[in-house]
């Protein structure tokens, strides 16, 4: 029994070498695209995760103007009370407070302008990896208002070591023309890989940083951090419904736009590249299919002569395209999955070129890229491959409809 499908399949098998080369070409292109995406996906996922957890949260509460103008004055007051309320609403999340202030860190030998980060050490250690990157000393204890942690580079520049003393000079929150000084002791020295943290930041507790802020029990950011994105919408709704006392609630998409921008820009660049690859492969398929169609002019002529409708003949050619595409999509995806495997386990190590971490949008990006399978996207690319192959066969199919049986018969 034969049908269009069976005929199409048999036609493709007529010239096994040609069909194999065509399918291989498309499959290689597809697998490369899928593998490249999986590699990026793994990277983005990690990046987003660290970014969200380390510098913001799935939902954050901030002063309404703080997102645009990170002024030290744009605080949220009564932060402790708000934190408790958030904790009650989100029992499964981690709730933390953060202060982003700045000033001059002075030591006997040097003066360096730095940011002063005020955190809740117990919770923050679960959110960011800096607590694991201590080089000397220890992480902060909760409530330690006089302790400070600094990066190794900063320590060297200030010429201070563990237990050393530094003074933070900052504008007086109540009278900016005056300055305040605060003494801290270095409790620990870290190396995070993020230049800003290592060179230009001192980390202390909320209690340690609050004297630099105006207002009662002030902080710049309250963050609600879950394990993944699934609870974000619900948490956001709850936060908005709270008595916020003038603060604004944001979801992470608005809170870390730089990160999102980077990912989007990178994705777009890659997609453009993928499209170019696809187009080039498709051109090759067009040529191949055209030639295969022109080879069969006589046979098509006979089919039209005995009464096959041109539309049906075109469908035959398109069906050949579909089968080619499907075979290539299958092979390509298998290859893509196979190529991704070593990248997902061992990964691609760029540390020789870029160092251990590269900082982007304020987050440390690991230079050891580990791929992550993105089955949805892989499937989407596979489907595109089929679609593009069918499109490639569209022109040959159209040409077939323009054939007149008599020209075909006389084509000797």
């Amino acid at each position, binding site marked *: 029994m034969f049908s269009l499908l069976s005929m199409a399949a048999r036609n493709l098998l007529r010239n096994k*070498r*040609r069909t194999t*080369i*065509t399918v*291989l*070409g498309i499959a*290689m*292109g597809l697998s*490369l695209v899928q593998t490249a995406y999986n590699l990026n996906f793994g990277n983005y996922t990690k990046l987003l995760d660290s970014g969200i957890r380390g510098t913001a949260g799935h939902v954050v509460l901030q002063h309404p103007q703080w997102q645009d*103008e*990170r002024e030290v004055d744009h605080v949220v007051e009564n932060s402790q009370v708000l934190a408790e309320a958030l904790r009650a609403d989100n029992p499964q999340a981690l709730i933390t407070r953060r202060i982003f202030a*700045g*000033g*001059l860190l*002075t030591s006997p*030998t*040097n*003066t*360096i*302008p*730095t940011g002063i980060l005020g955190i809740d050490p117990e919770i923050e250690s679960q959110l960011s990896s800096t607590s694991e990157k201590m080089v000397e000393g220890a992480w902060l204890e909760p409530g330690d208002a006089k302790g400070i942690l600094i990066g190794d580079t900063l320590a*060297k*520049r200030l*010429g201070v070591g563990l237990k050393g003393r530094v003074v933070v*000079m*900052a*504008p007086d929150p109540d009278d*900016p023309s005056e*300055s305040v000084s605060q003494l801290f002791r270095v409790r620990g020295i870290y190396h995070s890989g993020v*230049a*800003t943290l290592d*060179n230009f930041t001192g980390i202390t507790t909320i209690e340690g940083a609050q004297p630099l802020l105006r207002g009662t029990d002030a902080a710049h950011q309250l963050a609600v951090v879950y394990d993944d994105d699934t609870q974000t919408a619900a948490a956001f709704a709850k936060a908005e419904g709270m008595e916020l006392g003038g603060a604004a609630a944001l979801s992470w998409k608005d809170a870390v736009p*730089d990160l999102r*921008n*980077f990912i*989007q*820009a990178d994705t*777009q*660049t890659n997609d453009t*590249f993928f499209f*170019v*690859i696809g187009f*080039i*492969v498709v*051109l*090759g*398929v067009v*040529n*191949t299919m*055209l*030639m*295969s169609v022109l*080879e069969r002019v006589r046979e098509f002529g006979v089919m039209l002569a005995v009464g096959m409708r041109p539309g049906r003949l075109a469908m035959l050619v398109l069906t050949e395209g579909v089968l080619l595409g499907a075979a290539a999509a299958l092979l390509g995806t298998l290859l893509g999955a196979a190529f991704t495997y070593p990248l997902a386990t061992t990964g691609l190590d*760029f540390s020789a*070129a*870029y160092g251990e971490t*590269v*900082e*982007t*949008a304020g987050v440390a990006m690991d230079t050891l890229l580990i791929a992550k399978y993105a089955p949805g996207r892989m499937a989407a690319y596979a489907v595109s491959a089929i679609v593009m192959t069918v499109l490639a066969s569209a022109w040959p199919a159209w040409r077939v409809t323009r054939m007149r049986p008599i020209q075909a018969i006389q084509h000797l």
Partner: protein
Amino acid sequence: MLALAWRNIWRHTRRSLITVAAMSLGAAMCMPMMAMMEGMFSTMFDVAITQQTGHVRVEHPDYPETLSMFDTLQDAESMLTAMEALPEAAAVTWRAYGAGLLGTEDKSVGTQLIGVDPVREVAVSPTESMLDQGTWLSAPGQILLGHGLAEELGAALGDEVVIMTQAADGSIGAGAYAVIGTMRSGNKMRDKQGAWMSLADLQELLYIEDQVHEVVLLASGGKGGVAALQDQVTAVAGGERLVRSWQQAQPQMAEMLKSGEAQSMIMLGVIFFLAGFGVLNTMLMSVFERTRELGVMMALGTRPGKLVQLIIIESLLLAIIGAVIGGLLGGGLDYLMCTSGINLGYGDLDLNGVVFPERIKGIFHPDQVVMVLASMMSVTVLASLWPAWRASRLNPVQAMKAD
């Protein structure tokens, strides 16, 4: 042979054109992309290298570690004169660094102070492109703020700012300066927290007299002339001073540039590898179609080797046409990329401390054209080898019976 090959190609105009189209498209895409990457790397180089370490830098041996105000170069003036006389030096400048609280009436902020020689700096750093608003330093008492810093302070052109800092002798140094411009240097840290002022002003503020923290040189031979320059500088600088090339000062940048080149090659490889499948199929079919004709040629005495040549020349010709078209198209796109640049539409891109402007411009280099076209030609020829080999294996008698 050449004429025959040429005519053979045009027997099937459309098929040849499509093959050429695939190749030229690949080429046309690669060139602007390479230009863009070159542009990005160049920006990174400028920000990380030229603005800071130059091609060769001279410092107090302890300074890189401590970055302390006190680790200065003494007797800098005579050294500078000697450096300027060096044949390998294209430009020389010197700088000092400090930190202080810089502010307006309402607000002050911890700031990194960069003291530059208003005249000499222009020859070393791309001051023109670094300047966002206003004008470069021309007289004492002037200051340029990083655009992020200016925004935070709410300081505008013409405003006066005051700096308070700890001077070298332990006293409080203070000074007032007029804001004559803002900077968008691309260096994230400096744009947010940096201020540029004249060397003399900073030396006065910090009370360090005529000392500087670094002397920076650009090589007349460009990146290639760095080694020669370094040798000359070392000879003049004397043993107590630290003389480093940019590769030594920022080894990662050197690695990154190399890896960037590798990335380009991989991209080219991938694109043309995939295009090669199409060429392979096309040539195989073209040889098959002509079986009888090739059989006749062999029967008449053409040697198999000649047939191989014929096929390879045909594909080379196709490649050359592709090269011309691709070159023109790619060149055009490349030109656009280098003049107008491409707007990725996602705001400033921040990577490793370098902030790329929203509109990234490409940089052209003849190498780009050469590499792209070379890849294209080699892939095309490689793809034609198998079909050519098949042609040479034809049995004349059987071939003539075919079709």
